[in-house]
């Protein structure tokens, strides 16, 4: 069961890969023609990668339709935070205990803790605030016996809101840390 889930995640990561594209050299450059040729080649490669990424997306979607596994049920969880708060609320204690028990029983499974914020203010400062929320969950799991080596706390800051909108209900959904299985 666990293996199937992890391979799906690998596919998801590949699908998310980006393609670097050549910026033509600045004007009044004797290598204009070479640059144009390189740009065309880069564009062709980018287009090909995009097609492949699309194909991978398709296979990922069909795989997900097969339903939840044990690991999926345990992870894919969200810990929500109050405005300007960075401590894990007591209401999540049983959730984290269950996750910690699973991780302790499965030392090969690693999780990423993804911190998020609402979308007000500096991108980088929000990234740091999201990191605090991810770190809070990491510390809570660590106190429940999960080794640091099994966890990675990262932040998406305000960049990946679950809810769009400029009101408290949207912001509330975005102040959270997601617990997701890692692919390595």
């Amino acid at each position: 069961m666990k293996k199937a889930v992890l391979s799906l995640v690998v596919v998801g990561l590949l699908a998310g890969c980006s393609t670097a594209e050549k910026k033509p050299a600045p004007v009044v450059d004797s290598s204009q023609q070479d640059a144009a040729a390189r740009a065309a080649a880069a564009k062709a490669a980018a287009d090909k990668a995009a097609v492949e990424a699309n194909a991978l997306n398709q296979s990922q979607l069909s795989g997900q339709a097969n339903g939840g596994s044990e690991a999926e049920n345990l992870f894919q969880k969200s810990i929500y935070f109050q405005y300007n708060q960075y401590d894990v609320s007591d209401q999540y204690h049983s959730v984290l205990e269950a996750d910690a028990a699973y991780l302790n029983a499965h030392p090969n499974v690693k999780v990423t803790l993804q911190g998020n914020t609402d979308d007000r203010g500096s991108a980088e400062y929000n990234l740091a605030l999201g990191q605090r929320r991810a770190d809070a969950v990491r510390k809570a799991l660590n106190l429940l016996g999960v080794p640091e080596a099994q966890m990675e706390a990262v932040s998406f800051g305000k960049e990946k809101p679950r809810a769009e909108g400029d009101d408290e209900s949207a912001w509330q959904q975005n102040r959270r840390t997601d617990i997701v299985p890692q692919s390595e």
Partner: protein
Amino acid sequence: MRLGFVLLLLFPLLTRAAMTIDISGGEQSRIPVAISPFAGAGDAYRVITDVVGADLARTGELKLVDISDLQPPLTESIDPRFSVARQRGAEAVVLGKVSPLSNGQVEVGFRLMDAIKQTQLAGYSYTANAAQLRAVAHKIADVVYEKLTGTPGVFSSHIAYVIKRGKQYSLQVTDSDGQNVQTVLRSKEPIISPAWSPDGSKLAYVSFEKKKPVIYVQSLTTGQRRVLANFKGSNSAPSWSPDGSKLALVLTRDNSGSQIYEINADGSGLKRLTFGGGIDTEPDWSPSGQFLLFTSGRGGSPQIYMMPASGGTAKRMTFQGNYNVSPAWSPDGKSFAYVQRTNGRFRIAVMDIASGQTQVLTRGSFDESPSFASNGKMIVYAARQNGHGVLALVSSDGKTQVHLSDVAGDLEEPAWGK
């Protein structure tokens, strides 16, 4: 006050991602300059004088005097009709001509004339192909601006930013007027914090394509890129040292919050610079190389601090309000721009470091990510207009405001380069 004069830069060949430029404000006395249609320039070459005129007008420091009704156009420095330009208030006149060359290129020559004395202030010629005419125009505008104001022009410089369209993110580079857009990176995951290398040849940025923030450095000449920092945890907020040898960055690898480090541009020599347990981020390397400005939550709210570039004791710089972030040094190192929040509105301000005096420059509600042009005269920032993210410019004295708008997506995280 809003003068509300709008220049629509919509050229038939450049309909893709065309932007509008909206100039408002700008009350200081402006230098009047006339730009005569260039000799030998059919409609295909009108772009040159159009771009020169738009560049100069956008600064708020020069004012265009229209002499386009003179037929045939003023093209010679000895033309007696200089008196007409003088009567209309012009203190300087730009003349030029476009000459086709046998290899398909053109030679573009121009003269900047003192309208009163009818003497030449500057004159240059450029050889270009059709795709380079806008670049030639920016060079002409740079010369004219410097001759008339004494400050180097930045019209030939570039601005990097991130554009979001739906779930598609692109890191793009544009000319200083928002035209000639080049895509550097496309991704289905967010991209933030582009930072120009001092020589303008590379961009460092943060990409989430690996499902976490990782810092990359990408060459704009070859398109090649490499990972600069992918340590455990988050990797973000790159800022180049002025000699390009190192970058300051923010890592969380030591499980003590977001902390500032430095790393050599080749990825070696990681060194930790701050040792708090909270949030230290957004380092910005001073032009002298001696200091870092950064944002820290150590005092309970985000404020801007300064410390030696090698680390050490930090001095708090901002005290007004409970949200001051995103410091950006002015090129002369005497002041910095930053974002301050007052009554829920985010606006761009500048602080004079010696006196501690601050001035709020913008009037929006979501003005963020300030970045100075290399001549220190203008600041580019991200604003919201009609619910869209747009790039905006404000003069460093706050008197001139310009919106570079693209209706086709949200533009964020601008960085002004060479």
